[in-house]
């Protein structure tokens, strides 16, 4: 009995710092942010803070920039995720079997993961530059184009350009996660498949794929949320420009905070994002029939 009580005290004391800090510096500000979505809360007008119901949402949904950011978010997540996943998976499949120099090779192709999105944005901004940019130069040398493209200044190109940078950034994540999953497939499953005379495609469909499916579902779900929430690459690359054409919801939200000081509007965008995330997660878990992924 005493031992049990001691154990309980131990558990409580160990968890206390983490839980107290999270409560004060994560959940409390977060809830306050949600409340702000229903307030007129502008940094330069703090004497005029008051509840205004759904007014921020109404204003947002009437704003062309916000609607554009909605569709941009969909493109941004869909294309980034699809290409990151497909390229990451193909790499993981090739890298599964050890070969000489594999470790070094992985070190070189995975480093992008250690960089900040902001700096990646800067690096690609320099490469995409319409005058001195190396990408224009390379394309002209190969003969694919004969006039320079304004990758970041041309509204028709800007969104594709930021997505390309984002795909580049995220390939490593999928390659790492899927590689680790592939390496945990038990060898005797393949031996059994070999005995049944299965070819390599059959082996992939019947052994490999089902085994790594939980990882695929978890990583694509989480990654989609992160891509949706993270504006740093866009911030570094175009800052939403030209003329708001590359804003996604999260970068527009950041824009409202940093440049407008409009916390109310920013929070309204954030609450909209939470709504979308919840719907997406439910839909995703329903389609993939894997309630267990959420069961951490």
């Amino acid at each position, binding site marked *: 009995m005493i031992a049990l009580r001691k154990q309980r005290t131990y558990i409580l004391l*160990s968890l206390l710092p983490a839980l107290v*800090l*999270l409560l004060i510096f994560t959940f409390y500000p977060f809830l306050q942010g949600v409340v702000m979505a229903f307030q007129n809360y502008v940094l330069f007008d703090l004497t005029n803070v008051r509840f205004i119901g759904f007014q921020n949402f109404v204003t947002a949904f009437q704003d062309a920039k916000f609607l554009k950011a909605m569709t941009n978010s969909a493109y941004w997540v869909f294309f980034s995720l699809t290409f990151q996943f497909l390229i990451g998976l193909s790499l993981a499949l090739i890298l599964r079997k050890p070969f000489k120099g594999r470790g070094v090779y992985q070190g070189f192709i995975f480093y992008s993961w*250690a960089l900040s999105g902001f700096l990646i944005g*800067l690096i690609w901004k320099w490469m995409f530059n319409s005058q001195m940019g190396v990408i224009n130069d390379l394309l002209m040398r190969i003969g694919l184009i004969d006039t320079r493209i304004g990758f970041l200044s041309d509204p028709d190109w800007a969104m594709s350009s930021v997505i390309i940078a984002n795909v*580049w950034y995220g390939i490593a994540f999928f390659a790492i996660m899927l590689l680790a999953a592939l390496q*945990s497939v038990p060898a005797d499953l393949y031996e059994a498949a070999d005995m049944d005379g299965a070819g390599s495609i059959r082996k992939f469909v019947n052994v490999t794929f089902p085994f790594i499916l939980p990882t695929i579902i978890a990583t694509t779900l989480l990654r989609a949320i992160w891509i949706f929430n993270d504006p740093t690459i866009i911030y570094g690359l175009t800052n939403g420009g030209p003329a708001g054409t590359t804003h996604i919801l999260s970068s527009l939200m950041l824009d409202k905070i940093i440049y407008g000081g409009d916390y109310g509007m920013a929070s309204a965008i954030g609450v909209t994002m*939470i709504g979308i*995330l919840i719907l997406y997660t439910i839909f995703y878990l329903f389609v993939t029939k894997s309630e267990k992924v959420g069961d*951490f």
Partner: protein
Amino acid sequence: MKPRILTGLKVLYLALHFVIMVFPLYWIVITSLKPQKDIFSFPLQYWPKQFTLDNYIQIFKISKFHIYIFNSLLVAVLAAAIVIFIATLSAYVMARFQFRGHKQIMMAFFVTQMLPGFIALAPLYLLMADLDLINSRMSLIICYTVMLIPFSTIMLRGFFQRVPSSLEEAAMIDGCSRLTALLRVIIPVMLPGIASTFIFAFVQNWNELFMAVMFIDDEALKTLPVAMNSFVMKFDVDWGAMSAGTVLSVIPTVVLFAFAQRFIVEGLTQGAEKG
């Protein structure tokens, strides 16, 4: 398809991917080493005719770059160290005990990873203002610590689960308390996991931009990302200095990641598969 053709295609694919992944970093390094006139001259030089460290000297001249490096180091190391301390305690408990609320706490940790963090950004600013911590490195140390507690706990829990619990049971039979068993027996076995969690936390702190931009205005307290951010505003055209600054900012994280990659992969997979 013949196996040899297939192997050839694979090698080609890997080579192409290698070029695409490495080229951006190569290009920023090369740009940083070119004299100003060669950066903006045609045809573009893929291998500089002339190497120079002028851009690096320039960036220390136009800014307090050494101070930014110091600030970033201080904040990133301290916050990562505090995270490790707090997350080790909670991860151990989450790995070894089942108790009421266990599942809910785990869920709370995961939920924090999915929220659009910027909703909390403005209230955090107000909170820091109330605590009189605006324009202090303490504000960043607190926020970075809190930001990383959930993920570090999840990651460390994965490592703890791989250490057999018979290890500390044996130590406790020998008379150790649970805490001393943790400190003397389990932590030493866990060192690779703890080191990689530390490095992961350090890299996140080193790279964090938006809280630092919001909280820090004082030139003497700026971290590297904040400084780079204000360079973009001020010296948008000076790509020589910008490249040099970028290279200096990425060196520590790239080196550390190369070193810890294997452990981080293990830790993450464990976290993703078992949660």
